[in-house]
């Protein structure tokens, strides 16, 4: 497939995943605020920090009230990670590659965008926040479902999947990074029912509460960290996302003329990361420092993204592939 098009499928899905995650974070936080003690406003700031936009937010809004944070994360186009902005990016990419995706995919994404765009322009904006964010989440999930059931699982589909899996892995690390330190035992809340609600909310931010409970039955900090980073089966854990990204890259190699014997550069990077995560023990993570561990993970994801760009997406990618292939041939000669 065309390099430019592969790049656009990747971003269409990556932005779409970001939209879903932001909507889920807001939704979970809204629910949480029902049970929160008096100082509930504090819980909105981490959402801004998670997105990595706190400087911009402070500049534009100052105080992290519920209303300000929701506006900033949902409709504010100055925020490159806002739902409206990401949805537009996703849709712009989709529109440019309508010949590659299916009409059913496009219609769903287009209608969601038009809905959010109209809501952004209307006065009262969100009348029922629960329904509003639920609709965004479920439409994004619907989009993923339509993608899986109407599009051939060809190279384009795999590049899209890589896009949303990397985004998902990245989001999970961010959510854990920000929330974990806030939730670490504070003397007055330890063991209180509110503490448990908060930890449950962290898991709900990645739709993982129920599956976590099935596996662990009660909430322990180390188990939560393990579940979010290293669980092999939960679809939003970093390990699971990274492993499936590797699957997709292998499939892309297998579809190529060189065949599955050939291993692309990003594939090599992912292979290394996967085997590291497979052997990683959670107590080691916590011993060496969760924050440092997450920092390193995020750097690795960026490195993988850059390598994907150089190998597949950039206008000069064909030269890379050619050189790689030549090198392979020399090795086998």
């Amino acid at each position, binding site marked *: 497939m065309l390099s430019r098009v592969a790049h656009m499928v990747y971003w269409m899905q990556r932005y779409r995943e970001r939209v879903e995650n932001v909507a889920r974070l807001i939704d979970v936080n809204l629910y949480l605020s029902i049970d929160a003690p008096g100082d509930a406003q504090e819980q909105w700031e981490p959402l801004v920090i998670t997105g990595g936009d706190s400087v911009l937010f402070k500049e534009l809004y100052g105080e992290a009230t519920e209303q300000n944070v929701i506006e900033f994360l949902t409709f504010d186009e100055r925020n490159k990670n806002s739902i409206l902005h990401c949805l537009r990016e996703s849709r712009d990419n989709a529109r440019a590659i*309508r010949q590659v995706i299916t009409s059913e995919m496009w219609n769903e994404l287009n209608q969601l965008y038009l809905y959010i765009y109209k809501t952004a322009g209307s006065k009262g904006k969100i009348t029922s926040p629960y329904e509003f964010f639920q609709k965004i989440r479920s439409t994004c999930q619907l989009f993923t479902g339509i993608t899986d059931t109407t599009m051939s699982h060809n190279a384009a589909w795999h590049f899209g999947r890589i896009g949303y899996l990397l985004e998902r892995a990245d989001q999970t690390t961010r959510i854990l990074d920000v929330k974990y330190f806030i939730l670490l035992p504070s003397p007055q809340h330890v063991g209180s029912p509110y503490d448990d609600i908060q930890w449950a909310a962290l898991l709900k931010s990645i739709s993982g509460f129920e599956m976590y409970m099935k596996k662990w039955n009660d909430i322990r900090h180390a188990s939560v960290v393990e579940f979010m980073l290293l669980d092999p089966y939960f679809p939003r854990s970093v390990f699971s996302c990274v492993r499936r990204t590797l699957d997709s890259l292998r499939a892309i190699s297998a579809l190529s003329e060189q065949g599955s014997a050939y291993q692309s550069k990003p594939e090599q990077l992912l292979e290394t990361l996967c085997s590291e995560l497979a052997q990683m023990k959670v107590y080691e993570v916590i011993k060496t420092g969760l924050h440092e561990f997450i920092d390193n993970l995020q750097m690795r994801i960026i490195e993988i993204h850059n390598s994907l760009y150089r190998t597949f997406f950039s206008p000069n990618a064909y030269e890379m592939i050619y050189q790689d292939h030549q090198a392979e041939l020399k090795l086998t000669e």
Partner: protein
Amino acid sequence: MTELAKETFFSGYDPQGFYDEYFRADQQVRSAASQFIERVNTLSKSEILNRQRTAEQFFYNTGITFNTGGSSNGIDRIFPFDLFPRIISHEEWGMIERGLQQRITALNEFLRDVYGAQKILKDKVIPSELVYSGRHFLKSCMGLMPQQGIWAHVSGTDLVRDKDGTLYVLEDNLRCPSGVSYVLANRSVVKRAFPNFFRNYAIETVENYPEQLFDTLQHIAPQSRRDATIVVLTPGIFNSAYFEHSYLAQRMGVELVEGQDLIVQDGYVFMKTTQGLQRVDVIYRRIDDVFLDPLVFRPDSQLGVPGLMEVYRQGRVALANAPGTGIADDKVIYKFVPEMIRYYLSEDPMIANVPTYLCCDEKDRDYVLKNMEKLVIKPANEAGGYGMLIGPYSSSAERKRFAQLICKEPRNYLAQPTLSLSRVPTIIRNRCEGRHVDLRPFILNGRNVYVMPGGLSRVAMKKGSLVVNSSQGGGSKDTWVMRKQVGSC
């Protein structure tokens, strides 16, 4: 005979002395439209308006839109659409189809000749200076022989009907005419609005156009390329017809590429894929000649592919339409198409030309300058309805300005009598009013000449307006060619 409701949607509709595609001057229904009118008359006003609204919503939701200059918020305008189709009888269509086949065959002969032996110029049927001074005549294409000898693969000829019912060819659009995607979209919308009608009455299908186009493109692949790789070349997302480019690529199942996706290496054209370079054999290009190759034409072109023309010259890639084709739809050369038909085919033209006065001819020019308020004055090489003067609706200042333009650049202007285009009933703010239409059937010239039965009926939505171009606020309608009725007389 069904008993009609006392008040129907067409009650009080007045053709106002124009040729109306549904009603004769005596208010009787034309036979091609009678079944449809009967059907509409069984619906209440609100049912009709509902269907119109549903149709508009469909265009919006599915993003069938066009840009006139990239809009920043990504909300595009939908192409105004009207539910009431233009309806053409089987008999009349037969004449149109044959007339268009004849015309495109002659135009292709002309292109082959004018870039080759130039017999028609030597025989002085067409003044050679008019060809050489044509903006779209490309010297660099002299002596070229495109695959299968075909130059104009895709064309969209504009037809209009005058007051007395005569059909004329208004323009031959041989340079990437657009609109065919709207024909297909309109049809799918109208089918949803009147499903039973389509089940019960025989209307010619237009939906196989993409397959026909694919077949045409395959036909011109360089020989020995059995599994030819075909691509659609677009200027990009900001082009007003981007939706169409992407739609056609999708429907044909081929890649939609931009200039930056292609590269010339070792004498061939390749596209840049995630698996390296892949050879391209046929390019259905939707960019103008001058942007195709910065090494040959405009050096500042970002849309084209450096080196493309040399590969084309070597016969290693096919381009549709062939570069240089534009000389045949120069509006000055247009005047000579009836001569071409006689010269190359020894036949009389089946569809008439609109009488045309060339401003480079002294006698014609005098006539034009003296009769400006009666004439439509057009530049020879503009598209989209830009730069025109419609005499009867012009001010004296505008006429003065055009007189100056004509005297300054006589080769670039021509004039035609103002036709009063035929009308079709159209839904205007909950009512039915007549609006002027033209018709653009699409013609494919490949293994044989295929004329899409129907085409894009463009409609001037503004009251009294004769300008149907989308860039000038025009909309569109579906076009129905009725199939021969079996078992009825």
